[in-house]
């Protein structure tokens, strides 16, 4: 019963947030394309949004929703590969820097990560392009490469050229997020390692690997999930920069072009869609939280 109520309250909050965002996007629409709002008042606009009509782009003469959905696969794949890279790098590095915090290599990893967090995305991106594309000539500089249709989804993850093209933008984005997660994981692991259950486990003679992976990592994952949910917004902002830099034909590029062309309807529709995505991701993060931490889920149920 409580469960239903919590889901309901969550849905109501989400709806309220979306309506608030829609109000802001109506204001943005009036700012960029005043003629669009002349014959459309706020209430009418909100009604349209609620009924799923996000208007038509001035430049493309197509439905905004359709336009964004067309380019969303590109952005989604970029975000997916970025997240994979982050996970693949953060877990071993986090474990290592937490297990051997005094090791020289661990110290230098932490130092380098400081540089990573201080550099803006467009700079790391440019540096990556300079080394890996221009000087070493290993990876292509722009675009998505060859894509293969899976139904209406154009995927670049099934071709060699697609993977070549995704490496630089995904690496650039993950470099921006890595330091934060690395530091968080390391701090959490250090804390967990000193907690009583772990000391008990060590006293019982359980192998260190088992302790690190099953007691340490699992407990340290929880704040990481929260952080991942929160950082989704940052990632969306970074994708706009990275997509522009690498000419990635995704939602970020579309958004930038819409701004440059003063395409008010597309800009405002994009704002609403990003809000919806943000809310969905934070809902997923909360669900995952329950999955990794059964007591919390149980506590919620009571």
């Amino acid at each position, binding site marked *: 019963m409580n469960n239903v109520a919590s889901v309901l309250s969550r849905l109501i909050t989400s709806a309220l947030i979306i309506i608030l965002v829609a109000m802001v996007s109506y204001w943005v629409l009036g700012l960029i394309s005043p003629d669009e709002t002349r014959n459309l008042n706020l209430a009418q606009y909100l009604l349209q949004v609620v009924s799923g009509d996000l208007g038509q782009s001035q430049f493309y003469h197509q439905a905004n929703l359709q336009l964004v959905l067309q380019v969303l696969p590109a952005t989604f794949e970029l975000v997916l590969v970025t997240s994979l890279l982050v996970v693949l790098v953060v877990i071993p590095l986090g474990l290592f820097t937490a297990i051997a915090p005094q090791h020289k290599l661990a110290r230098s990893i932490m130092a380098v990560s400081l540089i990573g967090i201080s550099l803006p995305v467009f700079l790391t991106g440019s540096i990556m*392009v300079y080394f890996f594309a221009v000087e070493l000539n*290993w990876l292509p500089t722009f675009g998505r490469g060859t894509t293969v249709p899976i139904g209406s989804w154009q995927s670049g993850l099934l071709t060699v050229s697609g993977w070549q093209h995704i490496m630089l933008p995904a690496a650039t984005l993950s470099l921006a997020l890595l330091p934060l997660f690395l530091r968080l994981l390391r701090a959490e692991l250090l804390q967990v390692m000193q907690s009583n259950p772990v000391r008990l486990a060590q006293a019982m003679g359980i192998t260190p690997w088992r302790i690190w992976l099953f007691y340490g990592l699992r407990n340290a994952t929880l704040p990481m999930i929260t952080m991942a949910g929160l950082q989704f917004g940052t990632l969306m902002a970074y994708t706009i920069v990275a997509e*522009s830099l690498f000419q990635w034909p995704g939602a970020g590029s579309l958004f930038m072009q819409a701004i*440059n*062309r*003063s395409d008010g309807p597309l800009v405002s529709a994009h704002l609403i869609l990003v809000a919806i995505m943000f809310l969905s991701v934070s809902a997923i993060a909360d669900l995952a939280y329950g999955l990794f931490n059964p007591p919390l889920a149980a506590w919620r149920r009571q």
Partner: protein
Amino acid sequence: MTLSWLRYPTLLCLCLLGTWASANTLRVAYDADPVSLDPYEQLSGGTLQLAHLLYDPLIRWTPKQDFEGRLATAWQRLDSRTIRFNLRHDVTFSSGNPMTALDVKWSLLRAKSSPDFKGIFKPISQARVIDSHTVDLITEQPYALLENMATQLFVMDSLHYQGFDHNQRAKDAVEKHGHSYASEHASGTGPYHVTQRQQGTLLKLTRNPVYWDHASPGNVQHISLTPIHDSATRSAALLAGDLDLIAPVPPIDHYRINKHPYIQLFTRSGARLISLQMNQQRRPELQDIRVRQAIVHAINNKGIASKIMRGFATPAGQQSPPGYQGHLASLAPRYDLALAQKLMQQAGYGSGFRLSMIAPNNRYVNDAKIAQAVVIMLAKINIKVDLVTMPKAQYWKKYDQASSDLMMLGWHSDTEDSANFSEMLAMCRNPDSGYGRYNGGHYCNPEVDRLVSASAKQTNLKKRTQMLQQVEQILYQDAAFVPLHWQHLAWGARKGINIKDVLTVMNIPYLADLVVAQP
């Protein structure tokens, strides 16, 4: 483990080398995508560049700035109002229809109905069909620039654009940003056909197998045009070997591209004038010739050209670039701060005043930086400038409303001739005739109007030159506008692609004639 890591990059290198070697595809990147395949929808450099690939004009400019026949084999002036064009007999459109004089007549009518092109084609009153392959272009008044106009008359397939499309809209409709039939379907006589088009992402062209110009030495079979908005990405893609040809190249990358062993930079002086318009309608101060002179003298345009443009521009003192009929070598840039301050004092504005200013930030090379420099320079004569820069999409609306005191404007003569500058920027604003349409300063001098109008009818070249030079002299004395510089053109290309052989001063590359050396 180590070995496999080494193998991967090596393999990648080999793959890239593979694409590098397939030279019959020319991979080109521009800063913006041509909005339409219709040559008469949007008046812009991008449209003209594409039109020369998909269509043919009657005659065209050579890279050496002469005329050469394209669809016309010969042309001769019958009288001061008429030129007769003899058309080629062996030309077919991509639809298979043969090209005749009727297509020329139909194309002219269509151009004259287009909102963007009717101003340019206004002087031509009609095309008279003599026989199937002979056509006369006739002007209302005696007109010296009829040949210049014929370079812009691209012939479209009149039979193909009859009837209605599946949306029941007329196929021949010209509709700006309207996704009309012609904007998405091209039937021309040109050297290339469209094989794939994703607007804003990619345009693929393949050489027309039955192209009439067998004399063309060009060997480019396929062209892929990619718009890359970010100039750093464009340069990097060329340096990395992902592209063969890019334009424009930002000044900051010139050195890098120039010293690269496999890449070459090609620059040439251009004819696009960057200027500031001083809006006399909004500000009585700017009606005072001394104030306008003070502003012109306070702006160090040589400094802008050498420091901000890094020498990639020629500082200007007039509208017409060197080589144009109206160009007067004596009208040099005039930077003199002391004189400027004196003029302000004489005008009674020694303590200065405030001006608003707008400039685009993604239209001309370094436009926003130039505007910021102007703000600092004008502060030295106590004019405080409130500058707002904005993307071009917003800018042109503001410019059309003349909603600021100082406004930046770049202009490339549509006819490759001095008179077009004055007609559009210096003549009194007249909504009926369209003259002075971009005269954001609202400068109005009847003598200038008289001279420019008379020059259009004057077919004696020497007299016409005198008239146009006199116009420049008056504009200089009146300080009608602030001339900044003529922007240069820059192309970056892989070695073996000699773009300079096929590039006109209007920045149109005849890619069909490009000879690519196999690496």
